[in-house]
């Protein structure tokens, strides 16, 4: 894949869904027993499966009003725990292309970027405003502007944050890191040749 073929991600326009709660770990997003496969193809089917079962039909992902949402509003430290890319894969295949939360676990956020998914952080007051607005009027379309790191809903435009490096990767279509890394060419072998445990002590 050459860089020019890559997709620039500048804006997400979709309806949103709210999952309340902090420290939602990747075991909850995709329970480990569904990872016994060698492809990601079916990950979307089991997104939040145990939480959904436990909620007996009351989980936001089963809520008719949120059906078809493309943006997920979450709390603090979303995606903590295991590094499994199965988690963002599962959310992506379920239909989400952006996450808005108070904070994200680092590996989760990194995995999202490599899939071209947006993680936007907002302050706790702004998140609450957004949650209430969306829970009240789930049919509204919200809009994330990646360059500005803002989200606009009926309640207004809220200023959030996307780390500068990630933002540029998304905007410039450099989020698929493999081709970017391969551009370094021979410099990789050169660096390796200076390192004892690689070249021999």
């Amino acid at each position, binding site marked *: *894949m050459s860089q020019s073929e890559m997709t620039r991600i500048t804006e997400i326009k979709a309806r949103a869904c709210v999952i309340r*709660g*902090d*420290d939602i*770990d990747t*075991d*909850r997003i995709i*329970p*480990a*027993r569904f*990872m*016994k*496969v*060698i*492809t*990601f193809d079916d990950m979307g089917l089991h997104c939040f499966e*145990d939480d959904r*079962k436990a909620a007996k039909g009351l989980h936001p992902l089963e809520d008719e009003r949120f059906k078809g949402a493309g943006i997920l509003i979450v709390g*603090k*430290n979303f995606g*903590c*725990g*295991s*590094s*499994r*890319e*199965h988690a963002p*894969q599962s959310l992506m295949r379920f239909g989400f292309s952006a996450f808005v939360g108070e*904070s994200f*676990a*680092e*590996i989760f956020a*990194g*995995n999202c970027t*490599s*899939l071209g998914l947006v993680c936007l952080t907002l302050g706790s007051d702004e998140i609450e405003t957004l949650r209430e607005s969306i829970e009240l009027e789930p049919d509204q379309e919200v809009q994330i502007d990646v360059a500005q790191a803002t989200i606009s809903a009926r309640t207004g435009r809220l200023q959030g944050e996307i*780390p*500068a*490096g*990630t933002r*540029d*990767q998304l905007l*410039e279509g*450099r989020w698929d*890191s*493999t081709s*970017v*890394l*391969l551009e*370094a060419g021979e*410099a*990789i072998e050169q*660096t*390796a040749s200076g*390192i*004892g*445990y*690689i070249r*021999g*002590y």
Partner: protein
Amino acid sequence: MSQKGQNLFDKVWQAHKVRELPGGQTQLLVGTHLIHEVTSPQAFAMLRELNLPVRFPERTFATVDHIIPTENQSRPLSDPLAEAMLSELEKNCAESGVTFFGPDQGQQGVIHVIGPELGLTLPGSTIACGDSHTSTHGAFGAIAFGIGTSQVRDILASQCLALARLKVRRIEVTGQLSSGVYAKDVILAIIRKLGVNGGVGFAYEYGGEAIEAMDMEARMTLCNMSIEGGARCGYVNPDEKTIDYLRDRPFSPKGDAFERAAEQWRAVASDPDAQYDDVITLEGEAIEPSVTWGIHPGHNIGVLEEIPTPNRATNEERAGIEEALEYMDLTPGAPIQGTPVDVAFIGSCTNGRITDLREAAKVAQTGHVKEGVRALVVPGSQEVARQAEAEGLDQVFRDAGFQWRQAGCSMCLAMNPDKLIGRELCASSSNRNFKGRQGSPEGRTLLMSPAMVAAAALAGYVVDVREVNSDVAK
């Protein structure tokens, strides 16, 4: 070569930097890449799609750990899904020239147990694996962290990652640990103090008298759970213990090369006047045997303490505590000691090494597993199993009513036949007490040291290991 005032993280980062990337990230060379069956098959598939070869096949090492059964590892594995994952890994390794440590070769085990054991984990190296507990390898003064599958693809294709630089927090643990207090208790105490989120954006450097006194396996336990504190990697500066451990390992350098390597390893340690972004101190003497009561590792208390009461918590904490207590079905304000357990699990990349089994065996030999308790001992690797059997520990455990199993991740996350059933409550030496982690969507986990797990198995409820046997010395 090193300038004054550098910490180990700075030195390793500099040595492995290939170039700066636009946007402020660094292209970092990953010297040692470890893979397992769960997070690598999709990466190999992506590579094939891109028509790219594995760039440095000699720098990737593979094993099977998550899905391998611990009772019968003969092929084909009885679970066809597990067999398919293992076969796919074998095929990917064979096709690309990657070294694979399979179950029939004697060196298989949990990837974070075998890396150090084989001498693949070396001071001053960068190590990545599609597994968050890669932080374990930091015990040797390596910069080691977990990655996602797309990054596994990146390393296979380029031996590099695009990364933002971490800040470094030094965590000093002063003084001596009391008897019956282990590295597991220290890391739980650190997570309790700094929070499960406290390490986001940081690498943790562990130091101070209590850490320097730890053997290599204790340091691995400590670094293993850095990720549970939000820190993607944690490390201990290499010292003479590190060097002694690495002598005569299958993949460590030999002869004169070893001595040259040891010089470099000593030099990569943080300088005495190194700079840090943050420094935190904990008093070693004050750390008690720790037990979790909730649904993340930060939900832990000393074994003599009481289960938290939500209305004494800050507003911010309250909802989390209520949710945890409801799931765990524990009584706020009650002592954690005396909580009945159904299952006891000793194993995992946190506490499945020989020193862990020795400590647990000391307790096990004082009695018999309580009737009705299911107790499992799962060595972290085939090498650990051999050593334990040579020392007769397997017999000690069997005599005490524990099941002695074969190497694997087992009930740490239950992608294999070892699982909790229904609401079972498990005293576990693993690293995560998340809802559903041990295989039953309603299962419950209490994290503690292996000695504490053994003590709970004998009593049938949580007890202070220091009360069990006054000989349980450090």
